[in-house]
Structure formats: structure tokens, C-alpha cells
């Protein structure tokens, strides 16, 4: 008893010493010698993979999957600590000078070769997806560690519901299931047109390797949208299965409703990507503004600056000149559209820095305030 408590105290002291030491080493007094970002600029100049703070990955192969989808095979540096099928990573790219990052699913199960596969759909309004389609073999990108809790349950029968590019995490899961071919799995995959079907070959080979996999293909151009109501006819025992779902918003909502009504929400795991930005509505007289850090919601009138609106709501954002010159009120907008009161120029719907004093809301806006 006595020795154990001594051990714990020793451990605690060791932890404390380590913490103090790290703090001392990171102290600005030693700058620029302990400036990690500067060292990193030097090390990545020698070898782009030698990053001290982010995970670098090199593009090793590019495969067109059809229907504007492209698979990017990446070889990550040793910093990447692995993932589970169904998880995603943040991919960071330089899009015409702007650093952007977005979540993309790893569309392949972990494998001994250590390669990662991201399958990315090209979207005309998405600068990052377009830049990803411009990547070439040999280029380097930054990724995050794997994130997300959308992973396979360890046992039980499974129902996988995929719509469009939402098939990607499910593909990784099927890939992972090859090690346990006895698992009873049904995949319902909804796509628009048969002629532009994606991953047909991959799914065919899965069918061969997984004897207990049943594939139900749905083509909405032929038979209309996949409705939650039809699930009972497609998969009669759906209530007894753990369900994993990823697809377009409308589809996910209809299935969520079905499961909620059946009281089976604990069986349903779904994966959503990104924030859904509210559509811009120039005609509305006021918009709801959510301040994420302070967990406040307030109203901003059309034409009123977000700085004024936040102050009227009792918040105290940093400000300076109040006329767009000094940038003191620069703030991260997480989603929503704003307009520059001086020039009338409208922003994009996504994540970017804005000046509160000259921005007025054009839609519901979320700020990192």
C-alpha cells in the first residue's frame, strides 16, 4: 500500500516536471530557436514529407471512377497513426493561394501497404474538389489524422444505405469485411443513372468475395427517388439490422424519420459531411446569427453590420476603426453568406475570415465568435 502511493507521487512529480519542461522549451524567450513553424519551413524545403506539425502524404496513383469521381491514392508519412474503415481525414490544399481544407472519407480499408484512398467528387462550386482533381502523381498534400465514429459495429447483421458519393465510407467497410466473410450484409446503393454508375467493378468483386453480401442497386432516374417507405419491401428484416447510412441530405432525412418513428434510432448510424450553409436570401429583413464560441444566437438586420448586431446582443467583439480599414474585428465565419457593405460584394457560403464592421448578413450565419 505504502509503496504504491509513493509510486503514484513519483509519477505525478515526473508528469509535472515534464509539463514544466515543455512549457519552458516552448517559451517565446527562446524564439526563434524554438519556432516550430520556421524549422518546418526549412525541413520541408529539404524534403516536402519532413513536416514537424502536419501529416504530409504523397500522391501515388490517380484513378477515374467515372461520374466526376476520382480516387486519389496517398502514401502518408510516418506521422499518420492509422484508421478504421468508415473514418475520414481532412485534406488541405492550396486553391489559388487560399488554404482550404475539407473532410473526405477513406474509401478503402486499412491495408498492409499503408496506402490511403480518397474518392472525391468534383463539384463546380467547390474550389477544393476542383483542386483535388488537378493533383498529379508525385505531388504532396497535407492531411489530418483519421477522425469520426462512423465505423462498423463488431457484430450482428448489417444494413448499409448509400446514396451517390456517400458510398465511399461503405466501400471501405465492405473492404474491411473481407476478413470476416460470414457477416450477413445488405447494401442498398442509390445512384442517379445506370449509364453513369460508379464502382461497378469494385462492387462485383466484393460480391464474389463476400458470399453473404446482398447488393440492391437503385437507379433514381429509372424508378424515382429511393424512399424510406420502400425499405420494408427491399429488406424485410431491416428492424433487426444495425444500419450505417451515408448519402444526400434528403435521403438521410427520410430514413432518419422512418427509424425515429419505429423507435429504432439506436440502430441507425449516419455520416454527414460539412456544415450545411443556409441559402442566401437577400429579401429577408433579418437573419439569425450563431456565435459558436460564446454559444449565443442573435438577430442581425439586413444592412446592419454584424459588429453592431453583436454589440446590441450584449457581446463585445474586438473592434478598431469600424470602417473596414484596420481589420481589428476580423473574425472567422464558419458558414453563411455575408455582403460587404462598402462594395456590395457577396461572399461565398463557406469557412473564411470576414471583417465584422463592414459585413452584413445575407443568410443565417455561424461565426467563430
Amino acid at each position, binding site marked *: 500500500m505504502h509503496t504504491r502511493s509513493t509510486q503514484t507521487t513519483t509519477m505525478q512529480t515526473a508528469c509535472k516536471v515534464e509539463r514544466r519542461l515543455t512549457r519552458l522549451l516552448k517559451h517565446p524567450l527562446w524564439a526563434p530557436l524554438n519556432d516550430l*513553424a520556421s524549422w518546418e519551413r*526549412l525541413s520541408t524545403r529539404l524534403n516536402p514529407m519532413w513536416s514537424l506539425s502536419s501529416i504530409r502524404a504523397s500522391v501515388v496513383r490517380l484513378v477515374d471512377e467515372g461520374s466526376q469521381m476520382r480516387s486519389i491514392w496517398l502514401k502518408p508519412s510516418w506521422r499518420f497513426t492509422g484508421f478504421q474503415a468508415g473514418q475520414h481525414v481532412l485534406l488541405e490544399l492550396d486553391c489559388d*493561394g487560399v*488554404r482550404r481544407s475539407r473532410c473526405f472519407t477513406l474509401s478503402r480499408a486499412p491495408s498492409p501497404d499503408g496506402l490511403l484512398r480518397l474518392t472525391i467528387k468534383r463539384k463546380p462550386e467547390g474550389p477544393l474538389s476542383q483542386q483535388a482533381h488537378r493533383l498529379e502523381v508525385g505531388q504532396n498534400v497535407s492531411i489530418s489524422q483519421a477522425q469520426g465514429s462512423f465505423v462498423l459495429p463488431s457484430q450482428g447483421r448489417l444494413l448499409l444505405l448509400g446514396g451517390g458519393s456517400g458510398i465511399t465510407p461503405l466501400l471501405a467497410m465492405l473492404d474491411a469485411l473481407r476478413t470476416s466473410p460470414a457477416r450477413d450484409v445488405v447494401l442498398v446503393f442509390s445512384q442517379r443513372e445506370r449509364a453513369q454508375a460508379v464502382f461497378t467493378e469494385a462492387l462485383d468483386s466484393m460480391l464474389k468475395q463476400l458470399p453473404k453480401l446482398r447488393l440492391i442497386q437503385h437507379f433514381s432516374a429509372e424508378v424515382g427517388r429511393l424512399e424510406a417507405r420502400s425499405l420494408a419491401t427491399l429488406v424485410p428484416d431491416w428492424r433487426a439490422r444495425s444500419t450505417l447510412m451515408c448519402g444526400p441530405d434528403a435521403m438521410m432525412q427520410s430514413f432518419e424519420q422512418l427509424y425515429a418513428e419505429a423507435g429504432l434510432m439506436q440502430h441507425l448510424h449516419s455520416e454527414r459531411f460539412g456544415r450545411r450553409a443556409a441559402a442566401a436570401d437577400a429579401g429577408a429583413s433579418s437573419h439569425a446569427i450563431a456565435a459558436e464560441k460564446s454559444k449565443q444566437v442573435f438577430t442581425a438586420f439586413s444592412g446592419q453590420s454584424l459588429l453592431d448586431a453583436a454589440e446590441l446582443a450584449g457581446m463585445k467583439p474586438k473592434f478598431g476603426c469600424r470602417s473596414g480599414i484596420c481589420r481589428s474585428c*476580423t473574425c472567422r465565419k464558419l458558414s453563411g453568406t455575408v455582403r460587404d457593405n462598402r*462594395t456590395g*460584394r457577396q461572399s461565398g457560403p463557406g469557412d473564411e475570415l470576414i471583417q465584422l464592421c463592414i459585413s452584413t448578413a445575407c443568410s443565417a450565419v455561424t461565426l467563430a465568435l
Partner: protein
Amino acid sequence: MVTKTQLHGEQLQQFTNEIDALRQSMLTDLGTRDAQHIRRVRAFAQGSAIAGRSLLMFGFGPISWVGGVLSLATAKIVENMEVGHNVMHGQYDWMDDPSLHSQTYEWDIVCDGEHWRHSHNVEHHNHTNVIGKDHDYGYGMLRLSPEQRWSPANLLQPIWYLLLAIYFQWGVAVHDIKIGRFVKGRMSKAEFRERVRPFLRKSGRQLFKDYVLFPALAFWQWPRVLLGNLMANLLRNVWTNAIIFCGHFTANAQTYTRQEVAHETRGQWYLRQIQGSSNLEGGRWFHLLSGHLSHQIEHHVFPDIPAPRYREIAPQLRSICDRYGVHYNSGGFWSQYFSVLARIFRYSWPTRKPAEPAMAQ
């Protein structure tokens, strides 16, 4: 002296629109080129600092010492003027790179970043050349315009100016503490202490770096490093001071009174920025080493547009000014700097306040 141009009504509106359009055309064009520029310049400054400090620490003989000093001074000049000053204006915020974010960037100078953002971005850029509101006008110690009250201390202002040039980074560092207000009893002790703290923290770190840490790392070569760092800081101080004084204190740079700017529109703000600033002409390296403050006029009209763009828009802005009859103050370094020195000498003597312009009639 050139007279001040005022525009009114429709003409002022057109003038404003033309400048806004120029700004918009630049904003939509920002991209890879600008990102590459700032990253390259930062890499250059970093490389130059490493080379300079290495030469001072490990070199021997006077030639390597001079080389080290010049290299370190160049690093400090480029980091302060082209990287630090411009990044802190938010010129590269659109890149969304946390290491180039205006509100968190910290530079290699004794002035605290947050103090600078307030005294420079908020006060100086907003109230440019408004006597009594722009604390950069004369830095509280020099009389450069007949609008400023004369005091006997001004007789010695050429000497004050020489000292300011030598210790320029310290002048900038204490600027936002507003010591004058405290001395006159217009600031509480508690607020004064609050304002002094960031200054002490930042300057302490800088002093430790240049005069303790790096000399100590050179062991027996420490005197060489210490003197070299002192010299590099001095060169940077004198150079930045000369460039900055040419920005607003040349012969034809206008001053404004509080009454004049009481109900100013954006167009009138543009007019004041243009007529209160002056440009320097020179080559590519001259512009880079001045942090493009050689394009002070463009910088004051568009403080948050990446500085290398100033060179591209200068001809367009100049042609707008010509069309509206607004004086565009530009000249070579020496002629502009001599006119600044002349102004320092002239106004060290008491001069009569200029007659009020015949506005009432």
C-alpha cells in the same frame, strides 16, 4: 507649397467610384502569385537572418562581421517592412494561413504586435495627418507643420530627430503606451501599468534574444555577436525611419484639422490619404526593402491589398488623380528626404499660424 484639392458632389462621387472599382479589380485578381510572393519573401528574410547570425557567431575577421551585420540588417528590414507590417495590415488574411494572420502575427522588433495594430492600423491609418488625432504626425516630439503649437523644446528638434532615427524601434514601441497622456495626468496609474506590460514583455524578449541568447551561443565570440546585433538593429532603425518619414512629412504632404474631417465621407478619406502621403521612386529592390512603403499613397488608399500590387496600380491611381486635379506627391528618395529634413529645421523655429483659408466667403 501645393494647395489642397477638395472635390464636391457629383465629382467626388465619381472619384470615389473610380477608386472603389480599382480596389475591386485588384481584390478579384488576388491568387497564387501573391501567396508565392509573401512566402518567398519570408523565406528570404529567414535565410538572410540565418546567414547573418551564422556569420556573426562562427565567422572571424572584420569582413565576415560586416557581411553578417548587413545580412542580419536586411533580414530585419525585410521581415519588419515587407512581411510584418503588411501581414499585420491583413493583406494576406484571404490566404487563411495561420502563420500569416494579421491578428496573431508577431514581428522581430521591440514593438509589441498588438500595440502596433492599435496605434498604426486603427489610429494612424484612420486619422492620417489629422493634427491632434494622428499620433504618428511628429511622434509627439517634432513640429512639422504650422498647425502644431511651437514650444522652446522644438528649437532642439533636429537633435531629437537624430535620436529618434537611431532609436526608432523604441520610439515605435513606446508609442501606444501614450506616456504623454500619463504625464499630463490624463491616464490612471492602473491603465498606465496595463499599457506598459506588453511593452516590457516584448522588448525584454527582444533584448534577451539579441544581447544575451545569441551572444551566449557564440561562447568566446560573444562581443562580436553583441556588437553585430546592435549594429544590425541600428541600420534597420535608420533605414525604416528614413522611409517612414518620407511617407507623410515631405514638402507637399498636406495636414488636416479635426474640423475638416468631422463629417468625412469615404471619398474625402481617399482624398486625404492621397494628399497626406508621398511616394518614393526607385527600383525593384528599393521597393522591396521599403516594404513597398515607397508607394505610401497606394498603401494608404488600399492598406489591406498585398503591397507588391501597389506598383501595378500606381499608374492607374495617378491617372485618376491627374484627371481630378489632385496632386500626386512623388519623387526620388534623396529629394523627398531632404524636404523632410528641411521641414524639421524650418518648424523648429516659431512660425505664424497660416491664415484661415477663405472658406466662409
